[in-house]
């Protein structure tokens, strides 16, 4: 079983890396991009087959280490 975690900056928190990517895309001529937000992708290999347990374990990992909930949100996907 795998867990995929996306960590993104909360709305309202300035994302300078996203802004830099936006500038670079404009420089390349991609005019239709409104805003860019950059985040992190973390993939975890998990033992066991209990999806709900996996989800609650990964939620705890996010709260304790993977995300800083002062500035970041996280999304968890469990892939069987």
């Amino acid at each position: 079983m795998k867990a995929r975690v996306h960590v993104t900056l909360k709305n309202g928190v300035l994302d300078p890396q996203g802004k830099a990517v936006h500038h670079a895309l404009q420089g390349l001529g991609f005019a239709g991009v409104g805003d860019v937000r950059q985040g992190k992708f973390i993939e975890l290999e998990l033992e066991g087959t209990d999806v709900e347990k996996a989800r609650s374990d990964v939620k705890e990992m996010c709260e304790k280490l993977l995300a800083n909930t002062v500035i970041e949100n996280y999304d968890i996907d469990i892939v069987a």
Partner: protein
Amino acid sequence: MKAAVIVFPGSNCDRDVQVALQKRMGTAPHMVWHRETALPKTDLIVLPGGFSYGDYLRCGAMAANSPIMRAVVAAARAGTPVLGICNGFQILIEAGLLPGALMRNRDLKFICKDVTMRVETTDTIFTSHYNNGEIVKIPVAHHDGNYFADAETVKRLEGEGQVVLRYTDAEGNATDAANINGSVNNIAGIVDEERRIFGLMPHPERVIEPLHRGTQGALIFDSLLEALA
């Protein structure tokens, strides 16, 4: 007066702070490896600057979960003073001992230079040897020093006089141009509510002797010596 310096893998200012403590306080500090689970008897805990765990994930995130940090958090909550410099400030925040977050610098650059800042309060055991409003020049060296906290937290920090250092120009004006990394309200260092835990981005241990081009960092160690002797 005996201090303990916590050494994490990737710390690279641990020896500088060891020398600063020894020179200003006359006693060599304990150097405590992050895998330890108990602290020696100590009057002060210092979390040094550097790149603990390679700054992976987020600066300070993994160091904050090191075995020794349980003892550090317990000691801090029981009243032992803690000084966190640069990465040490990031670790204090990630450990929940200070509020807010330290994000990537506004201009995405690693900044390594002397920076002027204003001492906003001398009412701490860390800053009693300064004058209120004194302009100091202390070097910074960081990539993630952009202090952020929600509006309510910032209001509380400002209202309670917990902002200790603020980036300013040489005249002491906290302008946007003087805000080197984009920190909210130009904040460079804060204390907790009990005023016993101090986190700051600049490196006072790098300006303790005339050879360093300045000695204004020494006053932090002198203040501590007087308060804790």
